[in-house]
């Protein structure tokens, strides 16, 4: 149940009237216009979750509510400083790269090379014109009526996104990169992207999604990804989010996976002011394996929230969630993991772990596991820890000649490494490892991290 909010949805409706007057939107097909209006109506009806809403209790939306709401135009072709893409952290990865600037694909700075037969990768706007029926079928296919209102807001305002279809049996060796860059054109500038990804039976796909800002600014990103995975397909998705420390990042991933598939989703969140990652996955065929794996590093006043709903609908599926957070200064990490095992899902193997390392006395971790089990023959475990570095581990390293500071750094790196190590694509894992290590080393508090007595 979503609760009603006392806040005024007026500014959002007003902004929609303005935004939808642009020629890019007025010339859209009638069905798409109707789709947008429906999204807006649902957003209006649900409203913004109030502070006491169960799903948002630890994640105050105040930073979002304080932003002026200004939707970035659809169909724009924003440019970027040529050096930006070349120097960004994952630029060493090869493979097709789609660059979205303030929510819109810019084909001039994107690359579609290296796509094998049977793989269709393009911008959502362009496919809407080329094959509207296909898009119509896929849009909101994964959306539940009870989904968070920002997914509905995305329905009203989505500007563009990635359209990825992998035919049965097709294999992509290199990851498809989706680079979302905000240029922070003005306060509250908001980008809405929708990614529609469909992977056929026995196919293999890797995706690396990045969310970046070119400068500090209080912009807003609202992304919805719908991911459909066919039988025996293998998918690995890495979402890497490192935006301005004033930004608000709202992300909703809706997945439905078929029998014997293997899906690994990694979320690396270096935080915005507020970053909320909702992951809702349906394990809709027997004997599939799903790994949700995440790392969040926050400092200052940042908040990173991972909100997972894993639904076991069929027997003999495994779902494993591993989330580690390293929290510094006055920042906060939030983990909510709900595992729902339906009566049909016998022999479910579900595991959930959330570990938090606090580098400061003022940092907070909120962790909330929730198991709902309606089948009788299952194995479900969960565990959560919040604490400081293990004193015995530090002593063990020191007793081998490793200095106190190095020992602490090694353990913090290891804590992050547990998560990074699960990325199976070598080049991606190595690149992410490098970025995270640089990020940790740039933190003056790492060396002086307090440890448990």
């Amino acid at each position: 149940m979503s609760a009603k909010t006392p806040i005024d949805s007026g500014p959002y409706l007003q902004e929609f009237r303005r935004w939808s007057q642009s020629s890019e939107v007025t010339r859209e097909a009638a069905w798409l216009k109707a789709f947008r209006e429906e999204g807006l109506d649902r957003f209006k009806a649900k409203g913004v979750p109030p502070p006491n809403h169960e799903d948002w209790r630890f994640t105050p939306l105040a930073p979002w509510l304080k932003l002026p709401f200004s939707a970035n135009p659809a169909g724009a072709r924003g440019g970027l400083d040529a050096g930006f893409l070349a120097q960004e952290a994952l630029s060493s990865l090869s493979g097709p790269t789609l660059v979205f600037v303030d929510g819109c694909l810019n084909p001039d700075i994107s690359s579609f090379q290296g796509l094998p037969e049977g793989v269709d990768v393009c911008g959502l706007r362009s496919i809407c014109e080329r094959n509207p029926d296909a898009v119509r079928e896929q849009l909101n296919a994964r959306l539940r009526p009870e989904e968070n209102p920002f997914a509905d807001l995305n329905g009203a305002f989505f500007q563009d996104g990635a359209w990825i279809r992998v035919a049965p049996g097709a294999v992509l060796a290199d990851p498809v990169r989706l680079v979302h860059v905000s240029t922070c054109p003005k306060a509250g500038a908001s980008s809405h992207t929708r990614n529609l990804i469909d992977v056929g039976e026995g196919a293999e796909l890797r995706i690396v999604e990045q969310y970046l800002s070119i400068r500090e600014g209080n912009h807003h990103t609202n992304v919805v990804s719908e991911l459909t995975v066919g039988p025996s397909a293998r998918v690995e998705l890495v979402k890497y989010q490192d935006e301005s420390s004033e930004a608000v990042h709202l992300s909703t991933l809706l997945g439905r996976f078929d029998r014997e598939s293997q899906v690994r989703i990694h979320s690396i969140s270096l935080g915005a002011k507020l970053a909320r990652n909702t992951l809702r996955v349906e394990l809709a065929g027997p004997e599939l394996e799903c790994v949700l794996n995440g790392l969040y590093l926050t400092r200052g006043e940042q908040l990173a929230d991972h909100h997972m709903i894993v639904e076991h609908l069929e027997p003999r599926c495994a779902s494993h969630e591993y989330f580690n957070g390293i929290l510094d200064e006055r920042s906060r990490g939030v983990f909510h993991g709900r595992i729902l095992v339906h009566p049909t899902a016998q022999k479910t193997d579900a595991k959930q772990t959330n570990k938090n390392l606090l580098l400061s006395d003022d940092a907070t971790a909120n962790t909330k596991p929730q198991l709902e089990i309606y089948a009788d023959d299952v194995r479900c475990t969960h565990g959560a820890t919040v604490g400081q570095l293990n004193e015995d581990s530090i002593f063990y390293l020191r007793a081998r000649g490793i200095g106190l500071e190095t020992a602490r750094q090694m353990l913090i790196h290891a804590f992050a490494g547990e998560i990074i190590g699960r990325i199976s694509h070598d080049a991606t894992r190595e690149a992410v490892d490098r970025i995270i290590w640089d990020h940790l080393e740039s933190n003056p508090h790492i060396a002086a991290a307090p440890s448990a007595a």
Partner: protein
Amino acid sequence: MSEVILEIRDLHAGVEGKKILQGVNLTLRAGEVHAIMGPNGSGKSTLSSVLAGKEEFEVTAGQVLYRGQDLLELDPEERAREGVFLAFQYPVEIPGVNSTYFLKAALNEIRKHRGLPELDAMEFLKVVKEKLKVLDLSEDLLRRPVNEGFSGGEKKRNEIFQMAVLEPTLAILDETDSGLDIDALKVVSEGVNKLKRGDNTQLVITHYQRLLNYIVPDQVHVLSKGRIAKSGGKDLALELENRGYDWILKESAASARP
């Protein structure tokens, strides 16, 4: 006589206000193997913890000289770099820290301290492979995070392997035999015997005599109520096995009477 490596003089130490060691005296020379035996609660683990530098243990009186310098003044990492090694009774699992990376960092810290050039990855691997061969251990040890998911026996073997790589001058083996089956015990003690040199010394702390079937000590000391109650040759260990500890406790109580 060979060089004195470790000299413990009238050592008193405890933890959380509890007095555990109450006047330990011990001298270890290069080339020697000493065994410390004693019933539970006699202070064996406190002694090893104090020597390795565990901070929660407080030394209230006495001195520990390591090759003539005050050991208690040094941080744990400085002791290790000077050549002190503790094989832990309960080695810690450190997920996410790769064994090779860890051991290379440790060895290079020690080499740096001794003014030796650091080893690069290739040179290090060569050293490690030699040691694995000497101890007849599998390379698997290196691929996994430090002790993660290791069985009790594997953890103890890993301690001995680290000892082989780091080549300490003073090795303290804290109940390395506890929880080992007979095969693991043999592997561990053979390792210890192979690592014995003319210029190092080993202090083997154990509850049971059986380890001393494989490691032959030059001297055996019985620790009781925080003091060395009796010292002797390797025959003392056998006597303890046959007669238990009670007679020593009685003997030392009698001699303590004025």
